[in-house]
């Protein structure tokens, strides 16, 4: 009888592991970002698939009180208009000296109505203000108040096509990154033009930055220039330098 039990237990474990593998396989057979290349990227994919399948819906991140707003480091590119820096961008310098009056965000790719939105255009959309925690991959956090237009409103306005799967962002400091539709249509994913009740300051990405509150800070690109909606994953941006594409963790 003891022996029988032992076999049953082992069978239970093997069956359990096999079904776990079975659950993961369909996730791997779909074309998923980031592309495989090494075992670290496979771990990232496992985290991405697990978050998308196991976490319940588009839950909202915690929102804080006005009094919780903290000091906020500006890191990475802090001013693309600085000619002394490697990230200097002449166009950005010109736009900034004109108080961003000539700045416009272009939306193209898998949308029915590709268009260019000025800052005033974006501010005519219903605004959303949220006090959230920015989590930097370095280990620090900061709480700030962000005002902007939900990305979903802009995407719907441009008429996003059914085949669209990723939203790619290009910036004036030469960066590019993308998010999936799940995060793009998250209610707290906004294009922010205001910070702590004022216009977005240059060190924090003026005139417009992305806020992806469900991911690590580096997904929230500053100095936005262009949005391209695609139906396939573009393996550029941070990946060649080894940074994970999905950073919900």
């Amino acid at each position: 009888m003891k022996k029988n039990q032992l076999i049953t237990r082992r069978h239970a474990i093997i069956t359990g592991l096999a079904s776990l593998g079975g659950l993961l396989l369909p996730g791997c057979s779909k074309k998923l970002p980031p592309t495989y290349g090494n075992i670290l990227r496979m771990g990232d994919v496992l985290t991405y698939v697990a978050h998308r399948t196991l976490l319940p819906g588009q839950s909202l991140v915690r929102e804080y009180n006005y009094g919780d707003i903290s000091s906020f480091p500006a890191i990475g590119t802090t001013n693309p208009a600085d000619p002394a820096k490697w990230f200097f961008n002449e166009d950005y310098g010109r736009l900034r000296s004109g108080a961003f009056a000539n700045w416009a965000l272009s939306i193209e790719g898998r949308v029915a109505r590709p268009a260019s939105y000025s800052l005033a255009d974006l501010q005519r959309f219903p605004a959303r203000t949220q006090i959230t925690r920015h989590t930097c991959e370095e280990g620090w956090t900061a709480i700030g108040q962000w005002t902007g237009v939900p990305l979903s409103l802009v995407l719907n306005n441009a008429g996003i096509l059914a085949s669209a799967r990723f939203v790619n962002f290009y910036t004036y400091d030469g960066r590019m990154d993308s998010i999936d539709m799940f995060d793009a249509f998250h209610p707290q994913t906004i294009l922010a033009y205001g910070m702590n009740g004022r216009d977005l300051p240059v060190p924090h990405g003026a005139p417009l930055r992305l806020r992806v509150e469900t991911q690590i800070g580096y997904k929230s690109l500053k100095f936005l220039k262009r949005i391209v909606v695609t139906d396939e994953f573009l393996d550029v941006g941070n990946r060649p330098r080894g940074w994970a594409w999905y950073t919900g963790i």
Partner: protein
Amino acid sequence: MISHHTLNPKNSRHKRWVKGTHWIITVSFLVLAFSGYVILKVHPRLYWGEAGNSLTPALFELPISRNYQHGGWENNTPFFDDTDSPVSMSRNFAMWNKNSWARSLHFLAAWFLVLTGVVYLLAGIFTGHFRSHLWPRVSEFRLRLFWRDLIKHLRMQIPSATNGPQYGLLQKCTYSVVIFFLLPVTVLTGLTMSPAVTAAYPFLLKMFFGAQSARTIHFFASATLVLFLLVHVVMVIKSGFKKQIRAMTIGK
């Protein structure tokens, strides 16, 4: 301690699933400790609460990389008009940062630890392993006995190895704390640092007093686990290294 040897001769050897999970978790933990240290080196400051960064006061800062108390902050700009307003400052310091691979490696190892840990916990419950070997019996848990066992260990009077899970009282208590408290706490505080996970399960932020508190608790729990690992290895050596390693690997 002779009674331990004769407790149950049938169960005197380590089970195969115990050996397997033991070594997978060992390797995962070593990778986690290493990558965790690399991650900590990038921002070796620890805080309490939800927000904590170079512009806010820290609980303490560890001198473990060139990012320790680094300068390079400029353009101090208050957000509001009052005197104690939070500020924005720009950083022009070139950071030491290996998080591109260290973070992904940390989470990869964490997957191995968590999945193996779940298998171990389920097997431990359903085979009765925890009940018969790991949890101290009510009858044996006396403060006096615990104290006596502790003093013996401090005097390096370590009982010689058996071939299986015939653990002493102090050993049972230590393993139970590691398995049912320290490891779960590191996993849960780790998850509390994830913006997507805390969006879905905000109770984690309440439970650990905020994202930065979770990071600080994560650090102390991990450091305690490293300390456990060191003591564990010393005990293995003291009680008969060869016999212990054989019992935990190929020993039948």
